[in-house]
């Protein structure tokens, strides 16, 4: 019998990797990976070098600060800008109060907005003094109303009423009345982008819910109308709907009755996203177990009550990610109204580029606009993540 001899103790392979080991494993594991890595490095070098030299030496950034006010509000009359400022201030107060009273989610959203305000305040570039002034006041208002609202739970009802009245009041405020009314065609820049997005989001939601319910209705007429609407609208690109709103709607309008261009764009955006919203909500409705409907019927709830108190809360909660995705898409889709020559954030760049002083500076403007869009959409998706975590979506 041979004796078993233990030669050497073999250590388990190390799981800890140094940076050199990591590089070797992931980037230079064999000859073709090495070649690919080297190519990628050379490519990235030239890419970054190109971007760097353009951004820091060639680009003429003066176009941004000089036109910052146009990018924010378009051709909104300068002497009426206090209207926009008031809307921003009231929003700031409401946000601060909500953050103070409800804490949690509201606090996070509000602090994000306050950060944006602070960033604008401290921007190193030369911005128009009134923009900076408004940012300073708004940031301070948020902070003050937050502190004020912290121990005042009795304000809850008033703040909710404030939020509900905010939207109509905002429209009224921005539009003005009487002789000095500001026609909507003068709304432009980021202001118009935000208004279109907010109007679209606020208005498409109820229509979408009704369409979703209609599609599942027992009544054939309602069901078929809903299905037809949803499928027809989803079968058309938004651009064609906008063109129809811009070109055909005015022809059908009777007599002196005119809907102005911005309102037509709002209608087109709303009707378009309502169809998609309906499908999102329908997905949520299907996820609600049948037992819930039956239980509601068993205790004698009417159809509206079943829907409002039993089915919709569960249905909507499960499709929050999809709905927020829809809102983000709608926000970005507002840029399409520039093809019907509305001066929202993207379209207003054309109005600026027509200035002989700034012709040919499209790349600079477009890059800036892209960054603005990114900030807003990123903030929206960040908020949706918080909302999901807060409601425990996906944990059931």
């Amino acid at each position, binding site marked *: 019998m041979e004796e078993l001899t233990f030669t050497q103790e073999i250590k388990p392979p190390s799981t800890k990797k140094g940076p050199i080991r990591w590089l070797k494993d992931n980037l230079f594991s064999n000859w073709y990976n090495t070649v690919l890595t080297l190519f990628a490095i050379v490519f990235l070098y030239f890419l970054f070098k190109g971007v760097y030299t353009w951004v820091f030496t060639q680009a003429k950034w003066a176009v941004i600060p000089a036109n910052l006010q146009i990018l924010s509000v378009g*051709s909104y009359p*300068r002497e009426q800008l206090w209207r926009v400022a008031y809307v921003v201030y009231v929003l700031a107060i409401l946000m601060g109060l909500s953050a103070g009273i409800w804490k949690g989610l509201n606090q996070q959203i509000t602090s994000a907005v306050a950060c944006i305000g602070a960033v604008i305040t401290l921007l190193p570039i030369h911005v128009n003094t009134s923009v900076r002034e408004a940012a300073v006041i708004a940031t301070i208002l948020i902070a003050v109303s937050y502190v004020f609202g912290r121990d005042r739970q009795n304000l809850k009802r008033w703040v909710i009423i404030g939020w509900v009245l905010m939207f109509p009041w905002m429209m009224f405020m921005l539009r003005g009345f009487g002789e000095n009314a500001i026609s909507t065609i003068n709304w432009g820049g980021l202001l118009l982008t935000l208004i279109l997005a907010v109007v679209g989001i606020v208005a498409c939601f109820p229509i979408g819910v009704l369409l979703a319910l209609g599609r599942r209705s027992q009544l054939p007429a309602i069901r078929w109308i809903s299905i037809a609407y949803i499928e027809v609208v989803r079968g058309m690109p938004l651009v064609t709907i906008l063109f129809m709103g811009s070109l055909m709607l005015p022809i059908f309008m009777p007599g*002196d009755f005119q809907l102005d261009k911005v309102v037509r764009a709002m209608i087109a955006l709303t009707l378009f996203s309502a169809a998609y919203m309906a499908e999102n909500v329908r997905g949520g409705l299907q996820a609600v177990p049948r037992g819930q409907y039956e239980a509601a019927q068993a205790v004698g709830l009417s159809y509206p009550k079943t829907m409002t108190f039993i089915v919709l809360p569960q249905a909507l909660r499960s499709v929050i990610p999809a709905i927020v995705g829809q809102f983000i898409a709608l926000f970005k889709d507002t840029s399409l109204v520039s093809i019907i*020559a509305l001066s929202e954030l993207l379209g207003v760049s054309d109005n*600026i580029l*027509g200035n002989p002083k700034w*012709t*040919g500076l499209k790349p600079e403007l477009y890059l800036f606009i892209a960054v603005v869009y990114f900030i807003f959409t990123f903030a929206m998706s960040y908020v949706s993540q918080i909302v999901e975590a807060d409601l425990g979506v996906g944990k059931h």
Partner: protein
Amino acid sequence: MKKKWFRIIALALTALLVTPLLADKHESSILDKVKKRGKLVCGVNGGLPGFGFLAEDGKWSGFDTDFGRAIAAAVLGNADKVEFVPLNAAERFTALQSGEIDVLIRNTTWTLGRDTELNTDFTPPTFYDGQGFMVPKSLNIKSLNQLDGASIGVTAGSTTELNLADTMRTLGVKYNEVTYEDIDTLYSSYDAGRVDAVTSDKSQLVARRKDLKNPDDHVILDITVSKEPLGPLTIHGDNKWNDVVSWVVYATFFAEEHNITQKNVKTFKTENPEINRFLGESGEIGKKLGLPKDWAKQIIISVGNYGEIFERNLTPIGLPRGVNKPWTEGGLLYSMPFR
């Protein structure tokens, strides 16, 4: 009870929807509407260098918008009582037909088709443009025949593209057409040497040349291959309103012919009876147009004569007067008599 209310509400809503359909189109002139509204609504190009753009102060500015201001000054006595609606090429005629705008001043070429089929009426052109060519000086090109085999850049789907094809077919010159959707891309490609020549309206070529890397290395050929008379449009059939817009344009021509400027109009003294009629000192030409007595004076006070409008907006982008000068100096601007 509930059902009854439901029915009443449904009926009321239907009535509300149908009522506007029954309303008649009012057969009054746009002139009266503008006066009643106290504001002129003018369709413009929102981004055309020198002609229409948003200046840094948030006000619309440019050659076309100045004529909008001139109409407002004549009708309402205040050049600021005008609202500009930026329009794209496709929707400009619809906007005019549907009454969304009172007048369209958006670099629109006067053609037979547009005059007859589109339900629009033209007024005297405010700017005579024409399609031209820009080439690098180094190619040493003098005539279009020398462009044989060259690649020529043009914006897609424009009349420019059709004019290019027509011209070259007539001359029997073979060329490569390179079309671009976007104007900025067209000129940056030309600047990078991807096409040998670029063709467009001369006003655009001039405005764009100064943004090239070395503007002096490029030359705009002394050849015009199309006629592009650009002027204001009004809706077809509203003669009263068309008269007003036409005579506002003539007023700017007339003032330049007689050296009446923004500066001297308030103190202008003359024995010339026609000028006195023009300034509203005598006669009733304002009344005939349905305008205030001093309508022409107001125009000159607010925007100046044609030469001043041109110098303010188009001279800075490098446009020469060309044919856009008074007939007395050999140009095409000819004011009808103020009698």
